[in-house]
């Protein structure tokens, strides 16, 4: 009997101390972690939109298919002209969901794509983020050779309103010459990561399933819309305002 009490007590005390320790660390790091996540989101937004646009975070209060949170970019030069939208989309990959952010222009063309979260096989599906650097190990100096993440790059300029075709006859995009790459673009087609067809399909399927519906509901892709029109059209509420480089004061307008 006394034995049981001693065993229980020992485990209870150790668990309590462990819980307390994790609680303290969590308390100390949670602001920092939130800031890092915010930073990651900002960086993602910067990759999916072209340079020089003003990005505004929007909350969807209507029922529809549009996700609760999405982003709108305004062309900086005109300020009222819509440059595009960004959405967070999930596709079913080889190992769980692949979460990515995709920026689309008002014409439905993809402006940029970036992966937020995935659990794909290291060395295969995880190559969605690969930067195919042509640098060799014995030239350590020289820095950036301008290589971009080719898998995401190949989506830029494709239409999200038409199905994106997967071309299985060609090798990976970054190994092709410019003419073949242009041909792929004309056909609205991408190449696969060798050995990771399911990973590639996760992107094309998710884009095909969701983006056209979102754009239709937001009504933006038929004609360039002004900010006023969007606000009139949708019950939207802007929660945060991100100014890229010009600190203009009409941001308050969106917070009304």
């Amino acid at each position: 009997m006394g034995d049981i009490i001693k065993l229980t007590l020992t485990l209870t005390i150790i668990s309590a101390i462990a819980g307390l320790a994790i609680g303290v660390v969590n308390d100390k790091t949670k602001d920092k972690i939130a800031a890092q996540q915010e930073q990651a989101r900002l960086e993602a937004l910067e990759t999916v939109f072209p340079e020089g646009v003003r990005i505004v975070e929007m909350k969807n209060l209507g029922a529809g298919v549009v996700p609760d949170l999405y982003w709108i970019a305004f062309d900086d030069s005109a300020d009222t002209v819509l440059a595009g939208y960004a959405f967070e989309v999930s596709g079913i990959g080889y190992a769980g969901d692949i979460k990515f952010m995709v920026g689309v222009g008002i014409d439905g063309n993809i402006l940029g794509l970036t992966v937020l979260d995935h659990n794909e096989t290291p060395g295969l599906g995880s190559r969605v983020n690969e930067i195919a650097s042509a640098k060799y190990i014995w030239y350590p100096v020289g820095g950036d050779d301008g290589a971009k993440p080719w898998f995401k790059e190949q989506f830029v300029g494709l239409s999200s309103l038409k199905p994106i075709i997967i071309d299985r006859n060609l090798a990976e995009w970054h190994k092709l010459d410019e003419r073949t790459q242009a041909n792929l673009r004309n056909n609205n087609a991408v190449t696969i990561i060798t050995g990771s067809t399911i990973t590639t399909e996760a992107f094309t399927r998710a884009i095909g399933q969701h983006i056209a519906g979102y754009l239709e509901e937001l009504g933006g892709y038929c004609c360039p819309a002004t900010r006023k029109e969007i606000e009139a059209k949708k019950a939207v509420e802007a929660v945060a305002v991100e100014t890229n480089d010009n600190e203009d004061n009409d941001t308050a307008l969106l917070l009304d």
Partner: protein
Amino acid sequence: MIAKELKRGIITENPILILALGLCPALAVSTSVKNGLGMGLASMFVLACSNVIISIIKAWIPEKVRIPCYIVIIATFVSILQLLIKAYTPALDSQLGIFIPLIVVNCMILGRAEAYASKNNPVHALIDGFVMGLGFTVALLILSGIREFLGSNKLLDLLVIPGFQPMTAFILAPGGFFVIALVMGVINYAQRKKGA
């Protein structure tokens, strides 16, 4: 003494290559040198911390519940490490994030707690944690170096030999088994030759 301890952790009692402990995480993360290094250092941190704590409280832990106690302590340090990595090195988090919880079930850490920390004083336990963690890291670097080179013709994300066609199988689990088996075989052969 330090040299002797280092030799024990890295060579004569190397956790992966000699004691065959912690093979699961070793196979999972040794696909690239970067991952291997990150996982090795993370494991070393957890091992050193848990070894010290277990060594300090060993007298108060009843024999019957010692394993659950060890696991709680190890899991605590892993959780703390995960929060710290998320907060201060987001790049490492995106690369290693899903593998960090694997450290809890790394039998190298429980094995050292049971075999060493629970029988020795905190200072020795700390040294043991460091040298064993270092041995784990060195073994991971060897395995991941071979796998990254053969599997993708790269080391630290840089290309190695122009025109070399990489063998993707080495990045996958079967390749991992081959590489571990071959490295262990070479070490066994060398030791037998030395003994004879």
